[in-house]
């Protein structure tokens, strides 16, 4: 039960950071999401994102920041085994589920649904 609470608070706070980037820094949603992904990648680079996932669970894995974290994670896992070539081959290893499901479901949705308005 405590996990749900920390997921709610941490996930909510990451969204508040996104909202502040849009409202205060006047970034477009595209710039905001891009900034958050890069922040997530940097946080994993310095080893701070993994503890956040341990603490908040889905509160840290559901926001888009975890996409940056997963990219670095996949690249590092292969990089440790195969060196610099592994960094390139492993970069999409962990994020495959997210990217491929987004592509497949979006394409199927375009087949089924008609644009609104």
């Amino acid at each position, binding site marked *: 039960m405590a996990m749900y609470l920390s997921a709610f608070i941490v996930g909510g706070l990451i969204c508040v950071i996104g909202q502040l980037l849009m409202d205060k820094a006047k970034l477009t949603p595209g710039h905001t*999401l891009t900034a958050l992904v890069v922040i997530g990648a940097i946080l994993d680079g310095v080893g701070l994102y993994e503890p956040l996932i341990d603490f908040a669970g889905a509160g840290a894995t559901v926001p888009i920041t975890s996409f940056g974290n997963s990219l*670095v994670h996949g690249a590092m896992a292969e990089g440790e085994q195969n060196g610099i070539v592994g960094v390139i081959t492993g970069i999409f290893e962990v994020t495959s589920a997210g990217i491929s499901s987004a592509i497949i*479901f979006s394409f199927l949705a375009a087949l089924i649904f008609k644009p609104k308005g």
Partner: protein
Amino acid sequence: MKKATQQTDQQRIYQEFAKKREPSPSIWKNCLKAFIFGGLICVIGQGLQNFFIYYFDFNEKTAGDPTVAVLIFIAVLLTGFGVYDKIAQFAGAGTAVPVTGFANAMASAAIDHRTEGYVLGVGGNMFKLAGPVIVFGTTAAFIIALIKTIWIQWGG
């Protein structure tokens, strides 16, 4: 000429005045909405994650993948029915920052451009909004992982 500059001066003063008055309450409100909706989506994600841990053979590390896939599926479905964009208008970053917002950006671009054909319309526009996230995320991750890998190999 003189009149015009005077007017813009006045406009500038008014705009500064309006700026001071207007945004502060709406920013608080927006942040609260983003906090609640973003938090709720993460709670749903946590519920899904626990479901995959208890009923399937996933552990805490691997349960994230199917959770993200299910959330994306739900978001795409809601986008297709036009529900997600209605919630997003209210929730702001609360629905944009979670991975569901990423799926929403892709699905709405794909659906909106289907009249231009499946190859150039759907295929070409699907990444119009989601593309920057992947490009910059991948490049940043590459640089970070490269530095870390070289660091580890030379240091240890």
